């Protein structure tokens, strides 16, 4: 029996190496984020007043969609080459392995999205007072979205065409995160405090951190063996 800490570390290291070797999977959601945000002024016109009003919501919705796009790859390659089945029959704690995979997924998509967001905020002329709220809310929100999304990815990993289905079942579950995340940025843009929204996002992340790896591990057992 392996020590939990070294199991976590080994999985984490392996997945991180894999993520860096497939740079395309890492970069594509970011490029999507950038291009999709660019579409908005092109559709609505470059008026500053309009852009300032909608910037927090648009950035958050696009970050949500970019996360959704990246979810399918979370377990896909492990499922295709059979290593996921090896993990299932191995005598290790599956939720811990899943947790390590989610952590890598967040490092490879959620964190870059958060770091890219201020740049897009500048493009949409977001007030400077809102930048720290944007980063903090996305930092907490993308982590929670990776965790919840992992359940959806685990449920659909055995299916050939899981992509759209993941979005369908995961998006309603993202609604609270979207509401509080966008509202934090909105409040900060108006110069109001946003501690409450960030605290709620943190609470959501804490719940997801406890429950999502368990649910995702259970879902993997169902969808891979079935």
């Amino acid at each position, binding site marked *: 029996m392996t020590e939990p800490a070294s199991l976590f570390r080994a999985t984490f290291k392996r997945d991180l190496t894999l993520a860096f070797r497939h740079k395309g999977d890492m970069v594509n959601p970011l490029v999507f984020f950038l291009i999709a945000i660019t579409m908005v002024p092109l559709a609505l016109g470059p008026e500053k007043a309009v852009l300032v009003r909608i910037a927090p919501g648009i950035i958050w919705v696009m970050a949500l969609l970019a996360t959704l796009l990246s979810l399918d790859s979370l377990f896909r390659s492990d499922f295709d080459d059979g290593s996921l089945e090896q993990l299932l029959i191995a005598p290790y704690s599956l939720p811990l392995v899943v947790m390590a995979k989610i952590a890598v997924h967040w490092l490879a998509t959620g964190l870059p999205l958060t770091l890219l967001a201020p740049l897009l905020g500048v493009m949409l002329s977001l007030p400077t007072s809102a930048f720290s709220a944007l980063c903090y809310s996305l930092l907490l929100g993308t982590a929670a979205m990776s965790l*919840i999304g992992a*359940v959806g990815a685990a*449920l*659909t990993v*055995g*299916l050939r065409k*899981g992509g759209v*289905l993941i979005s*369908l*079942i995961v*998006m*309603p*579950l993202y*609604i*609270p995160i979207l*509401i*509080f995340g966008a*509202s934090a940025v909105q409040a900060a843009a108006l110069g109001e405090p946003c501690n409450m929204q960030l605290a*709620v996002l943190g609470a*959501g992340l804490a*719940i997801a951190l406890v*429950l999502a790896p368990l*649910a995702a591990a*259970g*879902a993997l057992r*169902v*969808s891979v*063996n*079935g």
Partner: protein
Amino acid sequence: MNWQWFHRLGSPRWFYEKTDSWLPWLMVSAWGLLLVGGIWGLGFAPEDARQHNSFRILYIHAPVAYISMSCYYIMAISGAVGLIWKMKLPFMVMKACAPIGLGLTIVVLLTGSIWGKPTWGTWWEWDARLTSYLILSFLYLGAIALQQAFQNRDTADKASAILALVGTVNIPIIYKSVDWWYTLHQPATLKIVGKSTIDPSMLYPLFVMIIGFYVFFTLVLILHTRTEILRRESRTQWVKDLVVDNSKSKGEGARS
């Protein structure tokens, strides 16, 4: 404690035979209650002072709203029972719940928007309750989509059960956040009907309608589950016997 009834619940055949005798009773009481409550509520309950006759859609809107919510919980609980005790029947109940729940939320949204037209002046208002039911209908759509995506029936059952459980944890959070979102963005044009205490003469028909709709829901759920039982057990001997018996008795009826 005697657990025999619980183990019996695991047998689709027992459920099918047992519910056979319940159906006429449920049918009569559902239609009776709905007719009495409907005529009472639509015809005889007093008119609302501010909304006049348009408030009467409440007698359909509110009961269906209650049931569409409890339907999700029934789906999640039967999914959990199926996962934990590995029984066949709860999964069939769970599968039957999703399309019924979707239908109910669609009725809630339709009656809500018909009610909204005279009260708020628009067909659709981003009202907290209407939005919550829209999201609930998305959850049902997701459950149906996941159920249909799998070739293997066992996998489909277990996967939908897990999704239903995850949704159950999320539903209170979604509700609270939508409430909060609404109070933050409350549109100024909205004329909210004050929290008036509803008059007993309006309330009694509502109670009758709620009970009537619950009985009706039970009936529809049992009918859907029975169909699912026949579909899944179609290779077993008792279903074959049942079909043969039925066609025999029909044949005799035609001859006499």
